[in-house]
Each structure stands twice: as structure tokens, then as C-alpha cells.
């Protein structure tokens, strides 16, 4: 038996973050009453004309630049013809021969640490279809066209992915990117980021690709991995038992964990595309591209690399701090304000994330601005408060509007660094605990912590821990 090599390409539908639809002024807000956001254009009523949403174009350009693609000076909308009840016009407006974005790439860091570049063949603008409801009306299907006309960017890779795990990683990397550059909210439950996978297998030593099947309806990272693995196994079994893979569209059913053929897509290869006479080509000027390039933020992967290089963070920290733009901006502002990136990284990925997590808040609702937190970190640096006291101060800052200095003063949390004062406490603890002193001198090093703990307790946590350590050592050893 030959060793089989899976070959996978993904088509990801990225819903663009616009207020209104790609060709009409109807709202794209999620969760509205059925059909309350489907206007005459979305319904395909006679006599209507589509007019292109400028923001959809701007977001497509931004994406193209972020993946190092070329932006077409001229791209053309085409009609993709098929009949389905949730597509009222009988065609979907899409781009075919001349898409807006061509030939980009996305770099993956594999679990081995190795990097792999995935080529992105194209990304094209199109409108979404509506939604069919099959279980609400006996013997009939209900159609909700609120989603019809929502702008999508379909991002198509070359068949460069060679396992389900790689496919998931590509999808995650793309997901991070589109959220970071603010072109998509990435909400997979609401269908803002959907994946179709083209899967084939070939003998490992064969240069020719096998026949592929397209799997639709992969709306979570977990499903993508399961469905692709399942499809790879199905094709290998089929080929090894002398069968042939048929080019077809298969639907993934997460309840049964299987893919099955979609008979409705029998004519899927025959969409009879032609340029849409209702829409002129999109013409994009060099100035427009230059402006979009200037407005593009530094991207997550570049930031991650810079955090490793400039700040000496480890990969995990760098990734956590660079994968969302508001987090990255907060972290960098804090690092600049407190002058210590290492300390800033610890606090953001420690206390800040923990507090957000505990209160179930998105980062946008953070309670302590980078400036206020920098004020606290400065007080740790100048030894006004110890690190553990600072956590109490942070908690108070999280709950109220005061800055660190006001809280430290009001609550008397100023750290005691005066060694005379601490020395008195150390002396007292040593003289009151002769048994522990004897144990320590007999070589039981663990008792050391007991002395430090007692001194800290008597100082109500305010003694400088380093001073306490030093004094306990010197007193016990003499």
C-alpha cells in the first residue's frame, strides 16, 4: 500500500465589519427579527440596482496589504448563477475572473517551531445568501433574508496544507489577523468566519493531485479538524478498496461526525459566471492603496517577533500580548510609561488578564488605564510598595477611580524599608522562637521561611521582603 499524503486547501468566508450591506443600505446587525433587515435590493425585487459599499472595498484592500498580496487596480463583479430559496435573485454577486486581492501569503509557526508559508491564491468580495429554517413550519421551509447581501471576503488558499492540524492552525492564524486589523469580528457562533475545505489524498511520491471533495459547513476549529480527518480516512479507505473519489460537495454533520454528499450541489461546477452588468468594475487608485498601507497597524506576527527580540519575552507571552490590537497597544504604552517591558508583560498577562477574566469583561472594558497602572509599577520600582502589596493596590484601583499613590497613602500600604525598624522585628521573632533557631542551626533550612513569614506578619506585610531576607540570614548565621 502506498503512503497517502493529504492535500488540503481552505476557502474561508470572512464577514466584513460594516454597518450596512455590500450593495444596499440595510443593516447587517446580527440577531434582528427575521426579514426586518432585508430591503428591496436584498430581496432582488425588479428594478433595483446594487451600489457598492465603500467600506467593504477599504477592508478588502486592508486585508490584501496585510497578507502581502497585490491589490487589483481593476476588479470585476460577476454573477454566480444557481437556484436556492435563500438566494432570491437566482444568482450571487461575487468576483470570478478578476478578484480584488491576488497572491498573498500567511506564515504559520508549526508546533515544532518550524515556519511554513501558506500561499493565498486570491480573496474576493461577494454577498452572503440568506438563511433557511427547516424545522419551524411543517412541510415548508422558512426563509430569513437578513443575512442576504452581508459583505464577505472569501479567502482561498493554494493546496498548501498537508494535515488537518495544519489547516486548523492556518484558520487560527487568519482568525487572529482579521480581528487584529479590524476587518471582521471573528464571531464564529454568529457565522462571521466560516470555512469550506477542499480535501484530496495522493500517494506520497506522486506529483499529481488526487480528486478532491469539498466539505462545507465547518464553523468551528474543532469541526474543521474532525471533518478533515474524517474525510481523509474516507478517501483512503475508498482508494485502498479499489474505489474512486468523486468530485463533489459534502456536508459535515457534527452530530454524527460524518460528511455526506450534497445532492443539491450536483450542478455546482456549472455556475455560468458572467460579469454583472449592474455593476461597474471596482477601480482602485495607487493613492488609495498607499493610504491604506499607511493606516495598517504593525501586524501580530511582526509584533510577536519584536517582543521576543526587543523585550526578551518568551514566545507564549509575546503571542498573548500581540494577538489583539487593544492588548498590544495597552502593553506597549504601559512598557513605555513604566520603563520596564518585562514588568509590564508580567502585570498585563498576570493581574490584568486575571481581573478581566474574573469579571468576564472584554479588554475594551478594562478598569485601569495603562497610565494608572504605570503609576503603580513605578511605586514598585522605587520600593514604595512590595510586589504583593501592589496586588492589593491594583485591586483597589480596579474597583475605583483613585490612582496608586492615593490608595497607598490612604491605606497606609507604604513599604517599610528602614532596616532599623525591620531589624527590631527580626530580633523579636528570633528571641521568641528559640526552638526554631536551634532547628535552623542544626541544618533544617526550611525553617528559614518561618522567620521571614513571622516578620512579614508583624509588619502587616509592609516590610521590604528583600531587607527582611537579608536581615534574617545575617542574624541567624551569627
Amino acid at each position, binding site marked *: 500500500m502506498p503512503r497517502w499524503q493529504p492535500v488540503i486547501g481552505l476557502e474561508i468566508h470572512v464577514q466584513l465589519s*460594516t*454597518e*450596512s450591506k455590500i450593495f*444596499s*443600505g*440595510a*443593516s447587517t446587525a446580527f440577531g434582528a*427579527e*427575521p*426579514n*426586518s*433587515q*432585508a*430591503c*428591496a435590493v436584498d*430581496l432582488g425585487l425588479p428594478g433595483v440596482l446594487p*451600489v*457598492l*459599499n*465603500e*467600506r*467593504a*472595498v477599504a477592508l478588502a484592500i486592508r486585508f490584501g496589504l496585510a497578507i502581502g498580496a497585490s491589490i487589483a487596480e481593476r476588479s*470585476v463583479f460577476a454573477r454566480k*448563477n444557481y*437556484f*436556492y*430559496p435563500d438566494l432570491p435573485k437566482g444568482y450571487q454577486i461575487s468576483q470570478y475572473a478578476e478578484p480584488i486581492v491576488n497572491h498573498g501569503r500567511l506564515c504559520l509557526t508549526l508546533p515544532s517551531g518550524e515556519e511554513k508559508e501558506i500561499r493565498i491564491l486570491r480573496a474576493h468580495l461577494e454577498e452572503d445568501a440568506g438563511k*433557511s*429554517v*427547516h424545522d*419551524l*413550519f411543517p*412541510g*415548508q*421551509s*422558512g*426563509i*430569513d*433574508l437578513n443575512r442576504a447581501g452581508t459583505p464577505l471576503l472569501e479567502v482561498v488558499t493554494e493546496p498548501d496544507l498537508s494535515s488537518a492540524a495544519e489547516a486548523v492552525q492556518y484558520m487560527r492564524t487568519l482568525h487572529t489577523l482579521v480581528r487584529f486589523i479590524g476587518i471582521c469580528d471573528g464571531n464564529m457562533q454568529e457565522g462571521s468566519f466560516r470555512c469550506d475545505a477542499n480535501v484530496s489524498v495522493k500517494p506520497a511520491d506522486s506529483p499529481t493531485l488526487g480528486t478532491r471533495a469539498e466539505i462545507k459547513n465547518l464553523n468551528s476549529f474543532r469541526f474543521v479538524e474532525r471533518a478533515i480527518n474524517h474525510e481523509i480516512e474516507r478517501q483512503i479507505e475508498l482508494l485502498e478498496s479499489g474505489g474512486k473519489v468523486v468530485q463533489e460537495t459534502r*456536508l459535515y454533520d457534527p452530530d454524527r461526525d460524518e460528511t455526506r454528499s*450534497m445532492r*443539491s450541489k450536483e*450542478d455546482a461546477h*456549472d455556475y*455560468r459566471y458572467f*460579469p454583472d*452588468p449592474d*455593476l*461597474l*468594475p*471596482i*477601480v482602485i487608485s495607487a493613492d488609495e492603496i498607499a493610504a491604506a498601507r499607511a493606516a495598517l497597524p504593525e501586524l501580530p506576527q511582526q509584533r510577536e517577533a519584536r517582543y521576543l527580540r526587543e523585550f526578551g519575552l518568551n514566545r507564549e507571552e509575546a503571542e498573548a500580548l500581540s494577538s489583539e490590537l487593544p492588548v498590544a497597544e495597552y502593553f506597549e504604552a504601559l512598557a513605555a510609561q513604566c520603563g520596564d517591558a518585562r514588568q509590564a508583560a508580567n502585570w498585563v498577562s498576570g493581574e490584568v488578564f486575571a481581573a478581566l477574566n474574573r469579571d468576564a469583561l472584554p479588554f475594551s472594558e478594562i478598569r485601569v488605564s495603562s497610565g494608572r497602572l504605570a503609576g503603580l509599577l513605578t511605586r514598585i520600582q522605587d520600593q514604595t510598595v512590595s510586589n504583593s502589596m501592589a496586588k492589593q493596590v491594583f485591586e483597589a484601583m480596579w474597583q475605583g477611580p483613585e490612582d496608586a499613590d492615593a490608595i497607598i497613602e490612604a491605606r497606609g500600604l507604604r513599604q517599610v524599608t528602614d532596616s532599623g525598624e525591620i531589624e527590631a522585628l527580626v530580633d523579636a521573632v528570633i528571641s521568641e522562637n528559640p526552638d526554631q533557631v536551634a532547628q535552623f542551626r542544626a541544618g533544617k533550612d526550611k525553617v528559614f521561611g518561618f522567620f521571614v513569614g513571622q516578620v512579614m506578619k508583624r509588619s502587616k506585610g509592609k516590610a521590604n521582603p528583600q531587607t527582611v531576607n537579608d536581615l534574617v540570614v545575617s542574624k541567624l548565621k551569627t
Partner: protein
Amino acid sequence: MLEEAQVQTLARLARIAVEPAELPVLAAQLSRILTLVEAMEAVDTSGVEPLAHPLEPVPRRRPDTVTEIDQREQFAAIAPAMAEGHYLVPRVIE
């Protein structure tokens, strides 16, 4: 010359019911359209920019603002069937 089978395929894709007796007639008529296209293809268009629209104006783009109001009730009035806000169609099962 189009085959009758090709005409049948086109009819299915366009959801048009065609009687078998009509197929040869349609095949002949549609073939005449293709002949016309072939005649036009004979013209040398190398170096000629494709014409997207006879007016060739600068394509307008719309600002991204919501300008439509909910007119579901009016649309419902001209829909064949509607229930609980949904347009109803014969059952489609995947």
C-alpha cells in the same frame, strides 16, 4: 451545433420545463445565436480594452451607513406566503 443533451442541461440549470419535442427546435435556434457570437469573435479586438459599461462613468461607492428602514410588512403583502416573519417556500431538504 448544440446537442439536444446540452439543451436539456441548460434547461435544467435554468429551471425551464422543456418538452422533448421542443429540443431539436431549441437546439437549432440557440445554435444560431452561437453562430452570431462566432461571427463577432472573428473581429480582431487585440489591444482593445474590454468595455464594462457604455457610459464608463467613474464607479460610485456608497458610504457605509444604514439608510433602509424595516419594510417587512409591505414586502409580506406581495409575498406568496409568510409566517412568523419568514418567507415560506416548498420544503427544501439538504
